[in-house]
């Protein structure tokens, strides 16, 4: 059982003082929710769970400990492991201070999709995989969920089911079995100028400027964020269409080349704005222009927009 493996791994890490604490998943308020959990002592290990809803990218939380000489264990899925690579490449958090506990993942269930058809209001007890189904045991009974129908959108295009970097891998390696063809971006690109404008105006109009997309982002690691500054007032604080458009364009650009496409920004948006699609557009363009991989996917590849090759395209000449 993966849950048992996680617990024994974390216990031995803490016992041997290989890490100061471990960031993992704990049970949330209902069966479809997990809670980032920080385990500092062996007695707290039983709080850790593994769930088919373990969606959060936990790598972000090391940023609360940037200048401490501290070793942190982090449980990562394939997508989250790209964040680890990028944080190390940007020298935000040194690799030797990470202890990466990798978990191969066939896809995370989308709580919102599942909640439409099943009752998730009970507390999470456990889960088992039965072929293509996931049986989630809750305090209000068992739910059998056909995995392929209820995955997060990002999981249908996952190219890294196995973490790209880890110190220990819990479970069998899973070979990549899906491809990302940027269907969502292409569909929007094919619209007319007016349709595109209308679509995004409708999205940006909803924004309440809560900055959850920024706060959750593992690429957003500036100490002073441009959106918090009052002097100079780079972007207006008013939540109107113009300022919101400026905010979303700037946010997308500030993480361009560093965004690992983990999809957390879209997930946490309380207004349902497809924030991540802007970043996916930039990643698609970068791939076409510079023949690179998604940032963080290949640890050998440096910063896409921070390096220069003489054969780079020069459309602006």
């Amino acid at each position: 059982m993966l849950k048992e493996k996680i617990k024994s791994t974390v216990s031995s890490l803490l016992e041997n003082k290989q890490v100061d604490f471990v960031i993992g998943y704990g049970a949330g308020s209902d069966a479809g929710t997990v809670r980032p959990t920080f385990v500092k002592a062996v007695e707290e290990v039983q709080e850790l769970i593994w769930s088919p809803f373990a969606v959060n990218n936990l790598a972000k939380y090391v940023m609360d400990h940037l200048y401490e000489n501290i070793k942190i264990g982090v449980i990562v899925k394939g997508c989250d492991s790209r964040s680890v690579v990028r944080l190390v490449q940007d020298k935000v958090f040194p690799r030797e201070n990470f202890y990466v506990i990798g978990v191969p993942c066939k896809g995370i269930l989308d709580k919102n999709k599942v909640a439409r058809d099943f009752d998730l209001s009970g507390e999470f007890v456990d889960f088992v995989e039965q072929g293509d189904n996931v049986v989630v045991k809750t305090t209000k009974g068992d739910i059998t969920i056909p995995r392929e129908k209820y995955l997060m959108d990002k999981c249908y295009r996952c190219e890294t089911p196995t973490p790209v970097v880890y110190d220990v891998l819990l479970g069998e390696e899973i070979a990549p079995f899906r491809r990302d063809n940027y269907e969502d971006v292409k569909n929007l690109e094919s619209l007319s100028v007016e349709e595109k404008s209308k679509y995004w105006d409708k999205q940006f109009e909803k924004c309440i400027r809560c900055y959850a997309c920024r706060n959750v982002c593992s690429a957003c690691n500036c100490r002073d964020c441009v959106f918090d500054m009052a002097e100079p007032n780079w972007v207006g604080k008013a939540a109107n269409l113009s300022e919101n458009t400026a905010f979303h364009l700037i946010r997308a650009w500030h993480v361009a080349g560093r965004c690992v496409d983990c999809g957390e920004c879209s997930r946490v948006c309380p207004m349902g704005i497809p924030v991540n699609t802007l970043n996916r557009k930039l990643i698609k363009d970068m791939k076409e222009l510079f023949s690179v991989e998604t940032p963080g996917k290949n640890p050998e590849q440096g910063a896409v927009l921070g390096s220069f090759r003489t054969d780079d395209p020069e459309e602006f000449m």
Partner: protein
Amino acid sequence: MKRLFEFIGFEPGRFHARWISGSEAQKVVETAKKVTEEVRALGPNKKMRDDRC
């Protein structure tokens, strides 16, 4: 940047980016003319026009 602007619904031709050296006076003139012509043909910009408070 041009690509992202066009992705959210700015017209192609609304934004131009050119790398021009200080010694390329002719290129500055040509570029300025081209930008003016293209933007004039598009008419006034309608996006991001809310008043700044």
